[in-house]
């Protein structure tokens, strides 16, 4: 068998956020993920590592990408994966999250992956359930697997993370991707700069160790990595910004402003991209864009986490 033989186990029950992870744990996850990349390139993309294990994907918020990525990760490790979709409105009306969780617990799964629109929902489950909980995105709080796959992508292109200048552009306030990446990248020694309209910059965010700009150019200058965030178009109605057109004119990545960055700048986006809003169409597909690598690495990172948490062994 070819999956990692000498991997240490992750000494924790849950993956709730990057905030709690140590540098050593992040390195362990990224190294494990590296070793899983190969599995996905085989003719038969399956190893028996988690045979007999059950993973529940509990999604209270639609997300085809993340859910599919977790599902494929589980299946490639031979686990049984079950998808449950629920709408948040049903939670408020009837069965509470805790009721649902206790029901799931009684069915004895090994890992529960949860996506929820309310920040802290995975923390609540982790406190109550015996099972390992993986946070697949909670409100505007954390999206640890996304940050891990982003770090994996940066590391594989740049050889490392320490010392890099990373710019994160867009709606920081509502972005769990931004928060998890800020925790992860600063922890790994990168300098993080954020930029966006002031309405998208949370009050006191500097305390997380980032430098704040309200002009995209200042954040991008000499950057090694530029990460654009997805803009939720419905935020216009909440007076977060006047119009998509104006946002695109001043905060979209384009040939002109990206030329301020380093020649070998990596362009990242958690997807799905609103082309012409966050990134000009030509830029999204250029050689510097790693958007599709991110997706590929997402499967490997999730395989690594499932493997490390479920304590998979090679039989």
């Amino acid at each position, binding site marked *: 068998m070819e999956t990692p033989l000498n991997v240490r186990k992750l000494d924790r029950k849950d993956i709730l956020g990057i*905030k709690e992870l140590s540098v050593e744990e992040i390195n362990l996850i990224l190294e494990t993920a590296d070793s899983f990349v190969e599995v996905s390139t085989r003719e038969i993309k399956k190893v028996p590592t988690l045979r007999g294990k059950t993973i529940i994907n509990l999604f209270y918020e639609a997300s085809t990408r993340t859910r599919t990525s977790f599902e494929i990760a589980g299946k490639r490790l031979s686990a049984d994966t079950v998808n449950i979709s629920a709408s948040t409105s049903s*939670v*408020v009306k009837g069965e*509470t*999250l*805790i009721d649902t969780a206790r029901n799931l617990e009684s069915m004895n799964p090994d890992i529960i992956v949860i996506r*929820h*629109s*309310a*920040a*802290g*929902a995975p*923390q*609540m489950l982790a406190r109550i359930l015996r099972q390992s909980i993986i946070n697949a995105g*909670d*409100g*505007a*709080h*954390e999206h640890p697997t996304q940050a891990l796959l982003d770090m994996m992508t940066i590391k594989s292109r740049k050889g490392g993370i320490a010392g890099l200048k990373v710019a994160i552009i867009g709606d920081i306030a509502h972005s*769990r991707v931004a*928060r998890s990446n800020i925790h992860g990248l600063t922890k790994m020694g990168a300098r993080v700069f954020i930029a966006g309209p002031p309405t998208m910059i*949370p*009050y*006191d*965010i500097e*305390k*997380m160790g980032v430098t704040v700009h309200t002009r995209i150019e200042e954040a991008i200058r000499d950057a090694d990595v530029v990460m654009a965030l997805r803009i939720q178009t419905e935020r216009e109605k909440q007076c977060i910004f006047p119009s998509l057109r104006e946002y695109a004119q001043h905060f979209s990545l384009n040939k002109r402003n990206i030329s301020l960055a380093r020649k070998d700048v990596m362009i990242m986006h958690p997807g799905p991209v609103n082309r012409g809003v966050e990134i000009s169409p030509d830029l999204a597909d250029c050689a510097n864009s790693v958007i599709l690598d991110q997706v590929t690495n997402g499967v490997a990172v999730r395989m690594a986490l499932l493997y490390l948490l479920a304590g998979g062994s090679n039989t």
Partner: protein
Amino acid sequence: MNLLLKGGRVIDPSTGVDQVQNLLIKNGKIAGRVEEGQALNDPELDVIDISGKILVPGLIDMHTHLREPGDEYKETIASGSEAAAAGGFTSIACMPNTHPVNDNRSTTEFILKRAAECGLVNVYPIAAISLKSEGAILSEFWDLKEAGAVGFSDDGKPVMNSALMRRALEYASSLDMPIISHCEDVNLSAGGVMHEGAVSAEIGLVGIPAAAEEIMVARDILLAEYTGAHIHIAHVSTKGSVRLIHEAKARGIRVTAETAPHYFMLTDEALRNFDTFAKVYPPLRGAKDREAIREGMNDGTIDTIASDHAPHARTDKELEFDYAANGITGLETSLSLSLSLVQEGILTLPELIKKMTINPARILHIPKGTLAADADADITVIDTEKEWLVDPRMFRSRGKNTPFQGQQLRGKAVLTIVGGEIRFRDL
């Protein structure tokens, strides 16, 4: 039954007394001090030795949520009264945000009737400013006062309409009653579930800026100045509010203010692990706000400590943070938490007692908060050294929702007497 409380340190800020005395209670009234030996051979007399303890006028909590009528599963007037007595309170004023809202004579009368039936502590209803607290039409202030209301508030909801607030102040003023304002600009606080600051920035919960409270404090002060009426600011939580109230008092405006123990004990750091027990409205603020609240207590800007007792059932709190109910059950921890201000040297014991007795009595114009001769014998005896562990399972309140669970506190009410009758005893 007559009662002699022997050997306690009597502190009554309303009369300036602070000395060891034997206090005699006759026919439910304060009969005054007695010297050793005198009157002690009355066979009808029940003597309780409270030496080493503090004897004060019965504590008053002017901001309590009893959930009856409507949400009896959270609290009833009876369970709330029991909790009050156990916390050392002889009088509580209850907020009108029940179901139905206390915006009419019959609801006020119902509350008083229920309170009398359980007969533990004095309950003073606060009536709604507007019908259903919807902020549109004034409720019938005269009727409500006649029925027994002691103040008006749309607590839980701010009065967003400044014109309505002005009329409410004018009307209440003519009846010599306070308007108690829950200060919040709902457009600024919309969607918010915690204080806006470094913690909300990091954990991704929607923040409520301090300005959402302060803008309304400023408005209410301006309206109180304009109308000459008395505004009482409920649950002050921010540094800016303290500053505004301080300046307004200096200018002679009729403004009084309260805060709740959690605002001088905790900060938004308590929410880092999404603890819904620390979810309150207004939210726990930052360290600078907490500091300013303590200063405001010290310099008299904040007149009284109110518990803002907000009992909830487990199912109201065991939810995702965004959906969990706001509030802390407070009646049984309020005094002990407040005593920590004395332990830390921020207030003297008489200053603290003043804030929990005569000050709220004056704000609500109720004949309480004093040990003057012939006053109702409402008395609280406090053991300032008694150590106890906050165990919500032991609470009389139906609400077990407290972020202070598991904490060791020092100081506790050990005897609560209402109208000469012992309502709680832990001696």
